[in-house]
């Protein structure tokens, strides 16, 4: 997503030089978030997910090479070598290699009937199975992606059991107090969640028939989805000698790495952000990835461009949509507005009494107010945040 954003933005900001966009997937660039939501249950309009339209690349003079990997790059000669043997010379190189699914030593993950949801082809393979009638899903991993797949599946007449090794699913991104609510909304909708227990093996002779848990319990399933997380693909950046930090590639605010002319964007980038306490943070979310790609493009084309966006993300879990802005930490103090329940409520994350993030469900007005507070640099008191009669946008405007 970040690579596509960089290529498309280069032309928008008037870059005249050659642009080569290389991707090892055979699907043209697409939005990844719908994979675990609408794509697996077959409600996605693929023409809107795979975008821009293929002809746009030719019109924009972007040389799109699909199904081809960059296997090596040289920062001195300024060349990249592709898996089809081609060599591409570059003045600027943008690395947007994203994340690879995490490897786990669970026996049986290689059986037919076990799926990942990291790529379009994988999501379409799940869609093909789900399309043939109600199925029982065993989902390994109770992160956002696993929970999205589970809630989408139950909303379409399937059953889903999520198995999460940690005691509280989604507690790391949301904090325990908020995660508990989100989890309950999912279980209220029929998702079964087994937390604090690992999967020992995937059962089945020639095809996955379920999973066996560490406590001996057996969960029968028609398909198993493994959504246990991902790791940044740093190989290419490492080959070029780019400095690393926070588990990613260290960049400056223009997304440039320690190697001149080489940029790193999206999931792999460890970038500076005034919204975070750390010197560099890495965020695996779509809007951040797109913003990174746009910033790198501007910097390449004009010599200017800084990534200063307020980080934000969303997660659609069936009919529930979580919208989060800011950078939360699991240990942040939580202040609620609304009665902590659907259809509308917001959780504010405070650190040392200062507003750092907000997670909102069904309350766009509060979310909009929070964005305005961040933009104005205003942090209301916990009492003001909790009081639904306090207009946050007005507080922001008052300064």
């Amino acid at each position: 997503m970040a690579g596509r954003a960089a290529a498309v933005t280069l032309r928008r900001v008037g870059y005249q030089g050659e642009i080569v966009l290389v991707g090892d997937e055979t699907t043209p660039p697409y939005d990844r978030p719908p994979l675990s939501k609408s794509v697996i249950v077959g409600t996605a309009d693929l023409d809107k997910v795979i975008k821009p339209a293929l002809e746009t690349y030719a019109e924009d003079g972007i040389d799109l090479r699909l199904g081809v990997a960059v296997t090596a790059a040289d920062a001195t000669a300024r060349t990249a070598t592709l898996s089809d043997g081609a060599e591409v010379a570059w003045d600027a190189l943008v690395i947007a290699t994203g994340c690879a699914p995490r490897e786990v030593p669970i026996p049986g993950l290689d059986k037919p009937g076990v799926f990942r949801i990291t790529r379009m082809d994988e999501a379409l393979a799940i869609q093909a199975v789900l399309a043939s009638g109600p199925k029982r899903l065993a989902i390994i991993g109770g992160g956002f992606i696993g929970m999205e797949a589970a809630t989408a599946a139950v909303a379409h007449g399937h059953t889903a059991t999520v198995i999460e090794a940690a005691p509280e699913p989604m507690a790391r991104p949301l904090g325990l107090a908020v995660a508990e609510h989100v989890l309950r909304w999912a279980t209220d909708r029929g998702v079964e969640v087994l937390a604090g227990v690992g999967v020992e093996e995937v059962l089945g002779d020639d095809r996955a028939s379920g999973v066996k848990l560490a406590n001996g319990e057996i969960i029968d399933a028609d398909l198993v989805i493994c959504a246990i997380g991902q790791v940044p693909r740093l190989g290419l950046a490492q080959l070029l000698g780019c400095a690393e930090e926070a588990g990613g590639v260290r960049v400056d605010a223009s997304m440039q790495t320690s190697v001149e002319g080489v940029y790193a964007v999206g999931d792999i980038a460890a970038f500076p952000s005034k919204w975070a306490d750390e010197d560099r943070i890495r965020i695996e979310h779509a809007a951040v990835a797109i913003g990174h790609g746009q910033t790198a493009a501007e910097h390449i084309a004009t010599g200017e461009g800084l990534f200063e966006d307020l980080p934000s993300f969303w997660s659609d879990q069936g009919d529930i949509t979580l919208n989060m802005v800011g950078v939360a930490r699991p240990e942040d103090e939580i202040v609620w507005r609304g009665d902590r329940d659907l259809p509308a409520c917001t959780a504010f994350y405070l650190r040392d009494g200062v507003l750092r993030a907000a997670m909102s469900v069904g309350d766009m007005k509060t979310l909009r107010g929070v964005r305005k507070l961040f933009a104005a640099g205003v942090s209301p008191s916990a009492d003001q945040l909790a009081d639904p009669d306090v207009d946050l946008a007005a507080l922001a405007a008052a300064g």
Partner: protein
Amino acid sequence: MAQVSIGSLSDFPEGTPTFAEADGTRLCIVRVGDTVHAICDDCPHAEASLSEGDFIAEDMAVECPLHGSAFNLESGDPDAPPATEAVQVFPVTIDGDDVLVEV
């Protein structure tokens, strides 16, 4: 480009995003005073109908009901993520009481 009638002024309540269809094009219509604005009804970010969202008067924008990006009625530009692309804006003419959109 064809001018298509989508109804009369009274079909579009002041400041309330309303769905309309013109020659198969899905539109989100907002009347502000004597002016009528038409933008594409489909959020460019995810599958959502903008006419189900709120009109934000101070920003002259329609807010997506799902993820909260607000699209300016004149430029089509979103104010904040997750949307990063503009929605298409369609020219509107008012002929007497008739609202015509150029699609």
